[in-house]
């Protein structure tokens, strides 16, 4: 290290400890301090404009024994918003903890409640993963909304002490051919890509779904997974009186002020013209992925140097959230000199600084002796770091502005003791009618010629066509550990280069199923995600979720939510894997029309050797193809009913979690034993889609016969090809492994039937039709570019 850099570090240390200046008389007179709040108890405050209800405002009075200051009001309003406080969902989410048994906690190192759950995957490694939503900002400003959604979840993962190693993005848009989809989709995809690619995080999967219910409210969910050694786990707490509170990363600006409470708590219709007061600025945060990339590396260096006692990212609700959550989780007290916070905009008022959602910021608790080393590392990365204050005894979060006390609150009252609502639920009356309107009445293809034409049309339909237009904009290779990514069933990455230990992750949700029956539909989302991880070869260990619903003030939506949570919690209990964390996004609706309930479920599994993962298609001729599972006549909510007939009615397919478990165990063992050449889960579009996609994966066709399977399951060819019965997988097996494989199926009680073999340049269904692979590919790849490149 040169003398120059030592002196630089020295001056950075001075800068980090720089005290604030004092206020002018005029500035002081306009400042709402705690003293002033006591002196002027009856002054009118804009609590309603900030999204608080009258009883919530009254409760703040009760907590403080006086009216809140402007800064306190800002903190409470943003922390008690739906987005931050989970006030409508909390009473239901408890089930995730209550239904987790001790056996399910076996691999759990950190459970729900921290920034993200942490799971033990063996060999001293731990994995953390979580999904979050950024739906409303992405509708307002697609690029920045999606980009900062990625940025936020990545910081959550970093704040556990982990290196982020992959992202996935479940996305949902309105109809593909709607003009507004053309406004929203390219920006969101470019935002996810632009931010994730610049962070050096491989994007290894996700979803792209089109449905008119998302027309005015697209869903942008982002999942991040991180890895660390057990001893590197960090938590968000502020302990040790006298320890320093350090803010580092980007400067604080005016972006996203009130973004959380405004954008996540109310629909856009309110105040769209900004007429009813200045406090509600519907501003979306602006991201700087370069700053975040540097912050990631800087944090990893800080963790390695063991100079971080506690850490929290700054996300929704910015400093309000970070200070109150760190203090609540620690010794309970904190003193903050807010005027020390470095600003991009020097005119920001203290309450705006507390609410700002400027991106790429972190807060660390640092022992005083470690500060020089801490600042040395932040200086190396050219990251600005400032000591804002210290941990105190006494259970108060005190914020000073140029020496004047503007906040003096019990931190738990801000972070955790917000209002909790047990909102009214009502099963929607219209549901009976919808469930009674089954798909049985829909006309089905009657000839083989019609069947072939249907396969082609479905292959090119908006929801089943190739997602490459989207996924080719994401870097799936960076970090060099990706071994499966889209379009395979799960993303699989190596965690340990020596042992090839790794993880498989999938996210899924068929929202039409959830709309028809939220309890079963949510279990179906879990089942599909679990199956996808199993097909790839991962042993499922943990579940995360992103619960996207309409307004909780609508009893029908609240009923959907309650049923979905109950279904997921029960399903996880049956499968024996815990929910480790997640996110709730409410008020996803246009006017009074909510989106389909969309509980996206992510499952993470461990693989002892990721080189044995199973891809979704066969590379060579002569592989023996088998269908696992049983096919029933199940078309409620199916892709066929929707894309061919715009029909959504009846009941979703039956869920059988025990069958899913047996199937996953079979596939994991068969993959490990090297019996499988390929495996592809049957979901949207059924067996027909699985066959087409497996042929297209490496351009090798297949010849199959449906007769034996039809006879065994008492269904016709159409039903076998397009039904969406669950617990089914298409597999390709080495000819010499056939006997071992079918014996393994029998051992697990998994129904197995031979379909045919891979090979040739067409998908041939014997006695019925033959479709050239190149024709299928042309149809499959044409749909999205035809619309999105126009």
């Amino acid at each position: 290290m040169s003398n120059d850099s030592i002196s630089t570090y020295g001056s950075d240390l001075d800068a980090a400890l720089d005290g604030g200046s004092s206020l002018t008389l005029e500035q002081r007179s306009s400042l709402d301090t705690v003293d002033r709040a006591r002196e002027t108890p009856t002054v009118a405050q804009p609590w309603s404009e900030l999204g608080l209800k009258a009883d919530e405002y009254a409760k703040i009075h009760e907590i403080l024994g006086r009216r809140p200051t402007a800064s306190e009001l800002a903190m409470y309003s943003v922390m008690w918003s739906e987005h931050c406080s989970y006030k409508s969902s909390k009473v239901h989410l408890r089930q995730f903890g209550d239904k987790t048994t001790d056996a399910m906690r076996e691999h759990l190192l950190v459970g729900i409640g921290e920034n993200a759950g942490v799971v033990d995957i063996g060999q001293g490694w731990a994995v953390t993963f979580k999904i979050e939503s950024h739906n409303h900002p992405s509708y307002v400003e697609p690029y920045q909304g999606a980009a900062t959604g990625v940025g936020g979840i990545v910081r959550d993962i970093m704040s556990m002490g982990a290196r982020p190693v992959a992202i996935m993005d479940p996305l949902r848009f309105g109809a593909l051919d709607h003009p507004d989809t053309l406004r929203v989709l390219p920006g969101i995809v470019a935002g996810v890509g632009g931010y994730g690619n610049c962070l050096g995080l491989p994007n290894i999967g996700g979803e792209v779904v089109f449905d008119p219910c998302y027309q005015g409210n697209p869903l942008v969910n982002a999942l991040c997974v991180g890895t660390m050694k057990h001893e590197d786990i960090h938590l968000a707490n502020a302990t040790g009186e006298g320890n320093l509170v350090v803010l580092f990363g980007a400067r604080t600006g005016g972006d996203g002020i009130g973004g959380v409470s405004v954008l996540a708590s109310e629909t856009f219709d309110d105040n769209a013209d900004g007429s009813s007061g200045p406090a509600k600025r519907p501003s979306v945060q602006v991201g700087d992925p370069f700053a975040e990339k540097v912050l990631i590396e800087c944090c990893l260096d800080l963790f390695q140097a063991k100079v971080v006692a506690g850490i929290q990212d700054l996300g929704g609700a910015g400093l309000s959230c970070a200070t109150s959550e760190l203090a609540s989780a620690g010794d309970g007290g904190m003193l903050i000199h807010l005027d020390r916070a470095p600003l991009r905009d020097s005119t920001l008022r203290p309450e705006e600084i507390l609410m700002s959602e400027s991106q790429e910021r972190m807060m660390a608790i640092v022992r005083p002796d470690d500060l020089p080393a801490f600042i040395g590392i932040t200086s190396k990365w050219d990251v600005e770091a400032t000591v804002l204050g210290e941990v105190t005894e006494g259970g108060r979060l005190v914020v000073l502005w140029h020496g004047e006390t503007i906040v003096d609150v019990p931190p738990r009252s801000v972070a955790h003791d917000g209002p909790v609502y047990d909102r009214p639920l009502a099963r929607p009356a219209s549901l009976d009618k919808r469930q009674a309107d089954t798909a049985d009445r829909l006309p089905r293809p009657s000839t083989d010629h019609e069947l072939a034409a249907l396969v082609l049309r479905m292959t090119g339909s908006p929801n089943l066509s190739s997602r490459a237009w989207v996924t080719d904009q994401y870097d799936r290779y960076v970090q060099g550990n990706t071994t499966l990514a889209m379009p395979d069933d799960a993303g699989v990455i190596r965690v340990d280069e020596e042992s090839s230990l790794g993880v498989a992750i999938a996210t899924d949700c068929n929202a039409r199923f959830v709309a028809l029956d939220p309890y079963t539909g949510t279990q179906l989302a879990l089942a599909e995600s679990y199956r996808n991880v199993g097909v790839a070869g991962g042993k499922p260990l943990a579940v995360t979720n992103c619960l996207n619903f309409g307004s909780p003030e609508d009893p029908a939506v609240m009923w959907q939510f309650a049923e979905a949570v109950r279904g997921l919690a029960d399903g996880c209990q049956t499968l024996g894997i815990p929910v480790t964390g997640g996110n709730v996004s409410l008020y996803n609706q246009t006017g009074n029309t909510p989106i389909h309930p969309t509980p996206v479920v992510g499952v993470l599994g461990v693989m002892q050797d990721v080189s044995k993962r199973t891809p979704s298609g066969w590379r060579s001729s002569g592989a023996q193809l088998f269908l696992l599972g049983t096919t029933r006549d199940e078309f409620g909510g199916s892709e066929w009913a929707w894309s061919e007939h715009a029909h959504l009615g009846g009941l979703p397919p039956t869920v059988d979690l025990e069958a899913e478990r047996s199937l996953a165990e079979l596939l994991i063992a068969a993959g490990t034993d090297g019996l499988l050449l390929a495996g592809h889960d049957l979901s949207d579009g059924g067996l027909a889609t699985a066959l087409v996609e497996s042929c297209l994966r490496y351009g090798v066709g297949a010849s199959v016969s449906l007769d034996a399977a039809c006879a065994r399951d008492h269904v016709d060819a159409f039903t076998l090809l397009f039904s969406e019965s669950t617990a089914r997988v298409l597999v390709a097996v080495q000819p010499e492994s056939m006997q071992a494989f079918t014996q393994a199926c029998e051992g697990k009680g998994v129904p197995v039937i031979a379909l045919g073999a891979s090979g040739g340049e067409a998908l041939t269904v014997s006695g019925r039709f033959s479709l050239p692979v190149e024709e299928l590919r042309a149809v499959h790849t044409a749909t999205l570019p035809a619309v999105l490149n126009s």
Partner: protein
Amino acid sequence: MRIGVVTFPGSLDDRDALRAVRIAGGIPVPLWHGDAELHNVDAVVLPGGFSYGDYLRCGAIARFAPVMSEISRLAGPPDATAPGLPVLGICNGFQVLCESHLLPGALVRNDHRHFICRDQKLRIERTNTTWTNGYAAGDEIVIPLKNQEGGYVADTATLDRLEGEGQVVARYLDVNPNGSYRDIAGVSNASGTVVGLMPHPEHAVELGYGPGTDGLCFFTSALQGVLSA
């Protein structure tokens, strides 16, 4: 053999390049953008990524990093016939080499305006370089391509000269993924020591991680070349 890999703020594929050097049998040496000391390396890789956020223009700020002044000095001018320090610039590294005037031409926004990630087929055109001497001329390889600003451009006279002098190292086959002039994927300096390549050989060095192992030869070539030099 010691091969240095520079980490700029915003470098992304630096650890991947270090791994590729190790798998090829070399000694990987991390180099830091702010440190002009090259730690006795025999060759340098400038990795992919977004150095300094690629603000202003890709590679434009990285060019002025202390480590780059030393690398530029040792690599020598692009037309020199005497071999200097071997340098492989991959993706962002290629952009840095062009901005540093160690290679002619420039990289501009892809013609279709999107970031693109794909398994790309290339033909190796020049094999008497430090980084491609293990390939045979005309070898067709598949390695990942992932970029937003990957369109290689230069004026006609420069392109003609590069073609005439045999300084086109690799060309895109089947698909020109970014609008590069004359399908150029990589070029070299006159002596063949400095090579810039838009696709990523470091992501094709291990079976199962990437499209194959076609990229490994870039790194084994360097070890061979350095050994025989």
